[in-house]
């Protein structure tokens, strides 16, 4: 399973390196989303500082949706998914490989977006440990859930609209917990940031385990 995961992750990342879709499309989209938030909040500086973590994680959620869709559109484009099913790769390995690839792209995006909120929303970065730890766990959860539900929606006629509908409510706790963890780290709230980390860990564990166990069935199902 791990061998297969590495192979698939390497393949997906190599494709991304060539096609540069995440770099050329998803990153600018996320940055524009941040800008739009600025417009929507009417430049209200104290409000933007308060809202920054939430807006950050919303931008990550929207980008995560795109990344998950992209992960499967490369398979759908030349019916490569049939090849993947026939390849002899273990479905759990395919799942992990794709999740790692999506996660890696999201982490890179998050680094850039952090720069974005520092610049646009005047955020001061504190509590780096909590920031990084919660970001990694959230990303794991988003990537795992995105790939699991992405596989489902891949074969369906209504793919583009079904995936957001499935994924957005599912990722709600991630947005909530990650935002609170970041608010605590950035000293915008007095709560205990670390227990949110536990929640994020549970979510990531559920979707990683769920995906590993059921990806075979999810890939066939449609």
């Amino acid at each position, binding site marked *: 399973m791990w061998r*297969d995961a590495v*192979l698939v992750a390497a*393949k997906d990342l*190599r*494709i991304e390196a*060539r*096609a540069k879709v995440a770099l050329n499309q998803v990153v600018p989209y996320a940055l524009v989303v941040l800008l739009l938030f600025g417009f929507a909040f009417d430049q209200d500086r104290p409000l933007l500082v308060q809202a920054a973590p939430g807006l950050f994680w919303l931008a990550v959620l929207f980008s995560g949706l795109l990344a998950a869709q992209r992960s499967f559109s*490369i398979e759908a*484009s*030349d*019916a*490569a998914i*049939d*090849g993947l*099913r*026939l*390849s*002899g*790769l273990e479905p759990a390995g395919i799942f992990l490989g794709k999740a790692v690839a999506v996660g890696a792209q999201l982490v890179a995006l998050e680094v850039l977006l952090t720069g974005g909120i520092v610049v646009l929303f005047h955020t001061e970065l504190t509590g780096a440990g909590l920031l990084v730890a919660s970001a990694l766990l959230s990303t794991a959860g988003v990537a795992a859930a995105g790939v699991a539900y992405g596989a489902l929606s891949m074969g369906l006629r209504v793919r583009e609209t079904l995936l957001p509908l499935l994924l957005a409510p599912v990722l709600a706790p991630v947005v909530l917990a990650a935002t609170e963890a970041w608010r605590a780290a950035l000293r915008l709230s007095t709560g205990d940031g670390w227990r949110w980390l536990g929640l994020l860990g549970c979510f990531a564990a559920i979707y990683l385990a769920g995906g590993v166990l059921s990806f075979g069935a999810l890939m*066939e199902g449609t």
Partner: protein
Amino acid sequence: MVLSVRLRSAVALAGRYPLLAGADLDVRTGEIVVLRGANGAGKTSALRVMAGLLPLAAGQASVLGLDPMADARALRRRVGLLGHRNGLYDDLSAEENVYFAVRAARLPKQAVPSALERLGLREGLRTLPTGRLSAGQRRRVALAVLLARRPELWLLDEPYAGLDAEHRELLDKLLREVTEAGATVVLATHEDRTAEVLAGRVVIMAAGSVVDGLLPDEATGLPSRAADVAQPGACRASLEAPFVA
């Protein structure tokens, strides 16, 4: 002789539409079967059922001795399917595409260059992203992917599409070679001369079932028409001892 494929009254659905409405088919090991039929006759669906990609709603199927539904994973490794689309990653080069398939099948990477060479893909073409190649070149890359995996059963859907005369002959030669080495080939095509050239048995499909070209022992109680559709250079098996079903 052993049967590679046996379909009995196979029914496969897409929603409520029967793609296959009770198809019977036998394919012997080492033989080349050419599926003919109009568009929508069910040739592609039959191939996909044999690959284990399309579940049966009714009827039985046995491919390489395995049930395509219950033993799908074990079966798929031993089967190679070339569909209408090539199944390539457009951003990867021919070499990388074949490499991925080879490593996924846990075969040594040395298989890659020889497969590409066998399909006439010269050095320069191997490193271009396949999205930039012509349709015929992409088809050949897809065939190279298949070849490198060394499947026991080759399922080809319109493999000649986009190939020029020189490369058609190349493919014909390749198919003869692999069957001599023990593989079985089932291919669906609109080309007329194929069965002759390949010394294959022609099976005609229409409306989701097989209507002609059945082997004598398939026709339960009905007169066989196999002899009537035998092409020159017909299946060698008819000259051999009775086969084992």
